[in-house]
């Protein structure tokens, strides 16, 4: 077991590049309370879905516990017209975007109401109406796509930013380099938001790169890099809001490293006890972003324990009700897996559909 990774201790956005504007908007008490409710919902979904996977009720799950403040704080700094290019761990972002719990559960179950029509593993979702682009499993590919969308938005005259979400592992990918390089060259209004959760499956952050921070990689691409305490909702929000203003002002892209810790496994297919010490996780959980925000809200006099207990209880009830309804939804039509390959099916696909339908009719294939 390696020694515990150093985490950012202060709660300020720390510009690696001094040209980055440090001060930015503050969240009001009401906004912080709303953010807290979203973070609690994310935590409840995460805890419950890990259990659902263990019970065999969903096939797979990618938890995000420990990254609630980073995701919610970042998403709150965006506008609805801004485009998000997520990885598969962005539950908090999806919730801020207004993706309903029911839609997420439909996707996890792959039922007839799943907007993605059961095509993808749980967590690999996307919702066009929320400008939340559909995720994939390959690491980092969304980064250069976010740059292209920003180029297109500029060409259309739309005053928006695009934001790519990815983890520490993705900073080693081809598309991290390609995407940041293109963004620097074309000065696109793109925010690269790296949630450094210290672990890429079993590989610790310090084996991912010899670089002192991930944020400092920005310098090579001619953009500011910012290191922020990802457990601090306000600090993340300030950093992203400032990056968004830079983008809209025509000053180009920003790389933000939000330092967090992945409390759970990489996914339900992974056992983190094989590669990291329980003590490290316990230590990281002392900086739990949900607990931290709760303490701050109580300290500010806008929240109390009684309301907090009620919120957790209501949120768990809401989850249970929604799950019951989602689990009662019929499965997808059998031949629907043949749809959406092309805008119009090719003759080959039509032939394959006819064969499939015949085999279902004849009982050769049993849906």
């Amino acid at each position, binding site marked *: 077991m390696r020694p515990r990774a150093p985490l950012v201790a202060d709660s300020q956005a720390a510009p690696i590049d001094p040209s980055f504007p440090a001060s930015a908007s503050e969240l009001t008490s009401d906004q912080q309370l709303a953010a807290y409710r979203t973070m609690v919902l994310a935590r409840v979904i995460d805890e419950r879905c890990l259990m659902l996977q263990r019970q065999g009720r969903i096939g797979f799950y990618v938890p995000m516990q420990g990254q609630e403040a980073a995701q919610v704080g970042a998403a709150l700094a965006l506008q609805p017209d801004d485009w998000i290019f997520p990885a598969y761990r962005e539950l908090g972002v999806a919730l801020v975007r207004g993706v309903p719990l029911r839609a997420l559960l439909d996707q996890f179950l792959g039922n007839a109401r799943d907007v*993605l*029509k059961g*095509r993808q593993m749980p967590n690999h979702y996307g919702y066009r109406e929320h400008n939340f682009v559909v995720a994939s499993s390959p690491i980092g590919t969304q980064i250069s796509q976010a*740059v292209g*969308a920003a180029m297109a938005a500029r060409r259309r005259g739309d005053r928006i930013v695009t934001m790519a979400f990815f983890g520490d592992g993705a900073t080693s990918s081809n598309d991290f380099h*390609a995407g940041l390089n293109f963004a620097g060259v074309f000065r696109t209004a793109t925010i690269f938001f790296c949630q450094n959760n210290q672990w890429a499956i079993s590989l610790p952050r310090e084996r991912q790169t010899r670089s002192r921070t991930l944020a400092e990689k920005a310098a090579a691409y001619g953009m500011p890099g910012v290191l922020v305490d990802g457990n601090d909702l306000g600090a993340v929000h300030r950093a992203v809001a400032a990056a968004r203003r830079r983008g809209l002002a025509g000053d180009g892209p920003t790389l933000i490293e939000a330092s967090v810790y992945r409390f759970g496994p990489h996914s339900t297919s992974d056992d983190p006890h094989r590669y990291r010490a329980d003590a490290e996780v316990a230590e990281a959980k002392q900086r739990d972003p949900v607990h931290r925000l709760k303490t701050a809200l109580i300290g500010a006099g806008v929240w109390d324990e009684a309301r907090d207990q009620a919120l957790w209880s209501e949120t768990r009830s809401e989850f249970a009700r929604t799950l019951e309804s989602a689990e009662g939804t019929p499965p997808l039509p059998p031949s629907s897996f043949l749809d959406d390959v092309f805008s*119009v099916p090719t*003759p080959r696909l039509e032939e394959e559909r006819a064969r499939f339908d015949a085999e279902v009719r004849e009982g050769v294939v049993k849906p």
Partner: protein
Amino acid sequence: MTELTLVQAINRGLHQAMKEDEDVIVLGEDVGVNGGVFRATEGLYKEFGGDRVIDTPLSETGIVGTAIGMALYGLKPVAEIQFLDFIYPAFDQIVSELAKFRYRSGGQYPCHVVIRSPYGGGIKGGLYHSQSTEAFFCHTPGLKVVIPSTPADAKGLLLSAIHDDDPVMFLEPKRIYRSVTGEVPEGDHRVPFGHARLVREGSDVSLFAYGAMIPLAETAAEALAQDGISAEVIDLRTLVPLDEAAIVASVERTGRAVIVHEAVRTAGFGAEIAAVLSEKAFYSLKAPIARVTGYDTPFPYALEHLYLPTAETIAHAARSTVRAG
């Protein structure tokens, strides 16, 4: 109608599309100021400017990744990969992303990118400027794969590709960029996908080919005619979607099939055509199906003339097929 080379016809097609639709964007290495290493994008930068004809850094994954982002947002990017041999850094973006966006989003995110890329041998390009790897893309659901063999088709298929709703791999047989000329219709000339071209009618044997193999197949058919063998030549034009009906109908007429491509033989596209014929035209076949292809070796430099199919090797295979039954 104007007499043009194949590469000039591609240039006219790009020009036509960019003139008619401001959403059409060209991007790639050396496509702007330089006009492309094969001159396919010549003049576009001057006419449409650097915002629409974009010289990119040297990164194929960056080119295709950004093109995907543009397409998701609603533009119609036409990305150039300078040689098909250099497309592999973008393979993840093409196979995992571009081809699957519509499907994986349940139809929410169509992703219409055209990727143009010169391919094929016969130009003394060696290992890395000669390969024909169209089968990789045919094996990836969600991609259309288009290969013109005449200037008119080059323009017409390219304009269809740019106005299509799906990702298109537009593979250009660079060996005949300038050696083939032909009349090309003016304006918005479009050739629909999925319709093979009957190049030459015949009754004894069908020669199926595409790209730079078409002129060789035509020469072979001429030679066969001298021997009293009537060869039909079919240009597939689009491998996905494939005009199976035309392939089957041709063999129902001739009873014999010779499939020609310069790609490696094993798991080459010819295997797919042979399989279609054995499934759907088996009882029309009078003789075993023959394939004339590149060898199962990397592409050789000094001896490429021995590696590639020629009119002679095609005619030889056709004669053997006719003698067989």
